[in-house]
């Protein structure tokens, strides 16, 4: 057994060296016009050799190692337990979510401004991920251009405020609706396509929208973006030190408290929180409505679902539109939080991050997606020194998840009956 593997193991080890040595071990350095090669540090070479040796050993004893792994007691204590009863599970889940929401309501008053700002970003990602979860997780349509709808929402608010002085509260529904309509218009022709073609076409749409934003300088300011986007107001009360719009009052004067920049940050955070909760609740409703079941039916088996009388276009289009709608929601909040937007914020990588959140959390599962959004946004901030490895780890995590646990960390469970064949 081991003997048979030796050749293959040696081959794998050589491949490991070939793919890592030139890229990792020899660094190109541009000095003026000339380029020179410099060797990497000794530790890199040692690491490459260790990696090759590990691959060699693993491949040589592959069969026995895999056998051991299979026999080894499950480390995960939950995996042996029977899944919880549905009613208890639902209760527990709603308690957890309620707990998180209550905690999130009071938390910002005790922490620094920076963490509240970060938390707002997390909430924006939660909205985005919940929206994409409808498209990818429930309806099974891989949308790689999701960030385009996010951009539509953000730019709608930015442009409306610049040219027509429209406030945040007016722009919020308009931005979301426009994003939803864009989703519908884009979705209508492309939803006939098969899964992987759809992915590429949406990717193309995302790029087209970004290129348009970048080059339509007269309207969008091109790469310079749009600045001076107003902050949201609370019943006509502004959060700035001085009132900018005629007729508004300022928050700190109305309540007779000292001005503090934190009020605005916390207010924005609370808006994002409320919107994220609304998003989660609406999508939760949708999941239990006939249309939600139709999404899943179509994802599981398109032909069977169609033969039962579901309209493919209507079902897919509804998922696409709803997903785009919430992306527009998130986009408006994002524009208002940043005060400045440019096409830089809407690159493909952003789509990939949102997709990674959905995949890691477990496609279709709301709690999983929320937890994944929190983890993916906060972990790189906590480990600053590793932040440049963030995308590397994302990529690897996506591959590993697909290989080992394609259903995600907290997969969605539907009530189902298992038919046991009688022997």
């Amino acid at each position, binding site marked *: 057994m081991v003997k048979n593997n030796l050749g293959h193991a040696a081959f794998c080890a050589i*491949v*490991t060296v*070939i*793919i890592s040595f*030139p*890229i*990792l071990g*020899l*660094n*190109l350095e*541009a000095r003026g016009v000339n*380029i*020179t*090669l410099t060797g*990497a540090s000794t530790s890199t070479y040692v690491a490459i050799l260790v990696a090759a040796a590990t691959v060699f050993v693993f491949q040589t004893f592959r069969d026995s190692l895999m056998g051991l792994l299979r026999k080894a007691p499950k480390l995960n204590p939950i995996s042996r337990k029977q899944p919880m009863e549905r009613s208890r599970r639902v209760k527990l889940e709603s308690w957890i979510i309620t707990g998180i929401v209550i905690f999130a309501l009071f938390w910002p008053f005790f922490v620094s401004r920076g963490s509240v700002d970060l938390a707002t970003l997390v909430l924006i990602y939660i909205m985005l991920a919940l929206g994409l979860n409808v498209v*990818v997780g429930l309806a*099974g349509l*891989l949308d*790689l251009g999701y960030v385009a709808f996010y951009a539509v929402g953000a730019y709608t608010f930015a442009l409306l405020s610049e040219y027509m002085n429209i406030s945040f509260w007016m722009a919020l529904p308009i931005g979301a609706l426009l994003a939803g309509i864009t989703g519908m218009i884009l979705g209508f*022709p*492309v939803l*006939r*396509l*098969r*899964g*992987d*073609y759809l*992915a*590429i*076409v949406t*990717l*193309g*749409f995302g*790029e*087209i929208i970004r*290129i*348009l934003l*970048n*080059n339509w300088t007269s309207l969008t300011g091109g790469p310079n973006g749009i600045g001076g986007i107003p902050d949201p107001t609370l019943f006509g009360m502004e959060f700035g030190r001085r009132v900018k719009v005629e007729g508004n009052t300022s928050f700190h004067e109305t309540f007779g408290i000292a001005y503090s920049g934190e009020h605005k940050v916390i207010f924005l955070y609370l808006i994002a929180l409320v919107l994220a909760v609304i998003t989660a609740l609406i999508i939760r409703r949708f999941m239990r409505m006939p249309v939600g079941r139709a999404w899943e039916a179509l994802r599981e088996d398109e*032909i069977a679902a169609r033969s039962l009388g579901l309209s493919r276009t209507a079902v897919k289009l509804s998922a696409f539109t709803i997903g785009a709608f919430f992306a527009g929601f998130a986009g408006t909040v994002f524009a208002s939080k940043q005060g400045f937007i440019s096409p830089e914020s809407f690159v*493909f*990588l952003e789509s*990939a991050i949102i*997709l*990674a959140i959905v*995949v890691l959390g477990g496609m279709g599962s709301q709690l999983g997606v929320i937890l994944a959004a929190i983890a993916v946004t906060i972990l790189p901030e906590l480990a600053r020194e590793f932040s*440049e*490895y963030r*995308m*590397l780890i*994302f*990529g*690897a*995590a*996506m*591959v590993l*998840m*697909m*290989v080992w646990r*394609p259903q995600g960390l907290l997969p969605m469970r539907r009530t189902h009956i298992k038919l046991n064949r009688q022997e």
Partner: protein
Amino acid sequence: MQDLLYFSQQLINGLTIGSAYALIAIGYTMVYGIIGMINFAHGEIYMIGAYTALIAITGMTALGLAWLPLILLVALICAMIVSSSMGWAVERVAYRPVRGRHRLIPLISAIGMSIFLQNYVHLAQGSRNVGFPALIEGGFTFGSGEAFQMSLSYMQITIFITTLICMTVLSMFISRSRTGRACRAVSQDLGMASLLGIDTNRIISVTFVIGAALAAVAGLLLGMYYGSVDPLFGFIAGLKAFTAAVLGGIGSIPGAMLGGLILGVSESMTSSYLSGEYKDVVSFGLLILILLFKPTGLLGKPEVEKI
């Protein structure tokens, strides 16, 4: 005359880029033809090929080698070896374990792989773009005096000839050799081929290796042509090549060649007659239109939906 020269210049530029796209597109189309998945990481493999070639060229120049054909040949071979090992490893690690699962799963795995490889090179080699030395300089010029001069550089000729050689060798390989016959059999019916004693796993690996090697050739050529490489170099080129593969009919090798040429020409025409910024819009728009109206592409066979 003036307009004609200008037009032919754009045609030449387009065909140059297009033939390199065709080389990358082969990798997409062969993999799709056999296992029906989009190898999203293919653009990154092309980028790694370009980087390896640049590293090899720099290394040899530093060692004092000056004979140009030798430098190019060694760089080409290095790039092909590294890229094909990469292609092989990617297939082994990210695609084989998920083969046969739901359509989206290999695709997400491929996207993850693409992000991983992009950042792997980014971390190892830095995010700045690095200049690629113009090793092949000079060319022919047509037209004289004040008028527009059409130029056909030696670099462009090299790209044409290399592409032509690669395509010929590939066609011979696919149509004449035993492995090539096995490739065709596997792409027609994977299950049946394995019943007939073909080692399908090996054939799939071979497909990835061939695609990656051709991508490495394109990486060297386009790297020299554009004059610089950076870690994001592969993403757009990969998308363009995928468009070319779809345009020609995905799964069909002559289709990929035709698609690459058409895409290259239409891109160069847009950027010269309309606007350079919108050339990407045109190629993505082309992709969307083809997928909507003729998903089988120009030379592809229609797919029958089986229940």
